[in-house]
């Protein structure tokens, strides 16, 4: 029974890790690759770590270290992905040709249009 649970969890983890790695290799865009990378951690690494806990038993020294690594990955990986995506956008890494929308540019244009509409009123009020 323990072996069956171990094999199921480990194969889920390995399958998601493999698909994430193939996605990082094949995706056309940096931002899609970042998304694949975070899927690799949440669905690929966590089931494998839980499988190690199941295989070795919860009271072994492997289980404590594996759970510690799991918590660490869960906390730090989204922060690192977010920081990387933000830094890449600010550094001007291009999006894919077929990307549908870029909400940051849209928001900036809206703000610019709003300021342009407001500025003549302010000038007239002061003058």
């Amino acid at each position, binding site marked *: 029974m323990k072996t069956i649970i171990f094999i199921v969890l480990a194969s889920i983890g390995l399958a998601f890790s493999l698909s994430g790695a193939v996605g*990082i290799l094949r995706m056309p865009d940096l931002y899609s690759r970042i998304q694949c*990378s975070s899927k690799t951690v949440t669905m690929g690494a966590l089931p494998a770590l839980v499988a190690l806990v199941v*295989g070795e038993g919860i009271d072994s020294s492997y289980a404590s270290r594996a759970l510690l690594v799991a918590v*660490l990955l869960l906390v730090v990986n989204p922060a690192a992905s977010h920081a990387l995506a933000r830094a*890449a956008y600010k550094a001007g890494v291009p999006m894919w040709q077929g990307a549908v929308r870029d909400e940051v540019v849209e928001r900036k244009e809206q703000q610019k249009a709003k300021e342009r509409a407001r500025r003549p009123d302010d000038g007239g009020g002061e003058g």
Partner: protein
Amino acid sequence: MSTSLYGVIALVETAIGLLLVARLAIGPTISDRIVALNTLSTQATLAVLFFAAFADRAIYLDVALWLASFSYLGAIVWARYLERGLL
């Protein structure tokens, strides 16, 4: 639990890491390489953990813990460098 199963899983994780090494080699921008390196460090952590269970040496677990914590620190430092141009 047969320990050879742990060794098989560690080998498969290493083989998945080889795919990421390809992206690390051909990545067009530096950000692609950072993403590949980040994922590669996660796979290396898993491989070390399963190899520790395979070889039955609990001292290797600390290596995996170190790798998991410091690789993300490295990714955040790289992101900061890309964003502001200084470390």
